[in-house]
């Protein structure tokens, strides 16, 4: 399993691996929104939590279809399915690798980009906390969506349609944590729910995704 994680990370960082694509998208979005909305600090600060979370979510979505599609194309998914590690573990490891190359870097650069959006100072720590807790759910749900659409030609669009509605709870609670943090309100409830979504996704979706892959490989 460690071998699989290392391979996926190595592939992501090699040429054409797509590392940085999501980050660049997130960066551009955070720069473009203030240009579009205008320099008025109050408006920007109010919409900043939502924009940052939507940006993180879309950046995550960009690289989802690579999780299984590339392995399916070159035949290694068939070989992994007959390998001694269970397919559930393959899914979990691949989702983890996806998080390490998208979710984690997004979390790390988000405070810097929040400056562009004039996020109130109380929101910064909570932005990082909410992304740390929420982005694993994005990767895991995304891996499930990728497993459902593996083997479909041009499955990327269908994948977005399938996955985006499932991202709604994460987006709502993640944005809410940052908004409440920025305004100095109590935020225990959305934070707990955000963590619950991530943990629930990590516990259940590897099994769902593995059965979807088994059906798709037949």
């Amino acid at each position, binding site marked *: 399993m*460690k*071998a*699989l994680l290392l*391979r996926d990370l*190595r*592939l992501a960082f*090699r*040429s*054409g*691996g797509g590392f940085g694509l999501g980050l660049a998208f997130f960066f551009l979005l955070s720069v473009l929104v203030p240009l579009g909305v205008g320099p008025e600090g109050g408006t920007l600060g109010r919409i900043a939590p939502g924009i940052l979370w939507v940006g993180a979510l879309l950046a995550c979505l960009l690289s989802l279809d690579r999780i299984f599609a590339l*392995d399916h*194309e*070159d*035949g*290694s998914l*068939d*070989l*992994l*399915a*007959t*390998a*001694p*590690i269970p397919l559930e573990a393959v899914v979990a490891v691949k989702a983890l690798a996806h998080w390490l190359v998208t979710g984690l870097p997004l979390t790390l650069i988000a405070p810097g980009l929040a400056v562009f959006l004039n996020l109130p100072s109380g929101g910064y720590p909570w932005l990082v906390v909410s992304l740390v807790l929420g982005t694993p759910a994005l990767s895991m749900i995304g891996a499930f969506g990728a497993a459902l659409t593996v083997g479909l030609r041009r499955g990327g669009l269908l994948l977005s349609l399938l996955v985006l509605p499932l991202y709604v709870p994460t987006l709502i609670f993640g944005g809410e944590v940052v908004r409440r943090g920025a305004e100095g309100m109590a935020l225990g409830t959305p934070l707990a729910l955000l963590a619950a979504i991530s943990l629930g996704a990590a516990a259940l979706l590897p099994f769902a995704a593995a059965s979807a892959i088994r059906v798709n*490989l*037949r």
Partner: protein
Amino acid sequence: MLKLDDLAVARGGVTVLRGLTLRVASGEALILRGPNGAGKTTLLRTLAGLQPPAGGAFDLSPDTVAYAAHADGLKSTLTVAENLEFWSRIYGGPGIHAALAALDLTALVRRRAGELSAGQKRRLGLARLLVTGRPVWLLDEPTVSLDVASVALFAAAVRAHLAHGGLAVIATHVDLGLPEAQVLDLEPHRARVIQNTGFDEAFA
């Protein structure tokens, strides 16, 4: 040892082969012959555990199988050594050096898989079998794009595998010169295609 008992296999919900009953002992090879579309790949995928049989049964634990499909499962941005090392670690099998030597890839270890020729890629794909350490090999047209010398290397690797008590099921049209090889012609086992008589059938 591999046992098929009245096995039927289906592709896309349509039964393509039925009534397959045979036994292959350890140290033996089974050669599958049949025209394109006869169901060789479907049979191998069923034996590999990638799809359930349409009927009958076979006795083969998924933990003993190494499957080599048409696609080699190589990552073009990884080197030859990295590709092989990955599968070796996944299977926890023997190291990669013997496999590299057996298929004459030692000179290419630092080359990226994307820069190899079709035949070299194929040899790397077959070298993967040697690092799995699995006793049963399921090979789907393993000699495609191999030249005569490479076919000989591959045949030698299969013979060594069989000599160590391994077993191989090979879909191929090339004579590998294997001792103790059973040939299974799939033609008599093909399930007759039911002609669609008209679209009323959907409502019948």
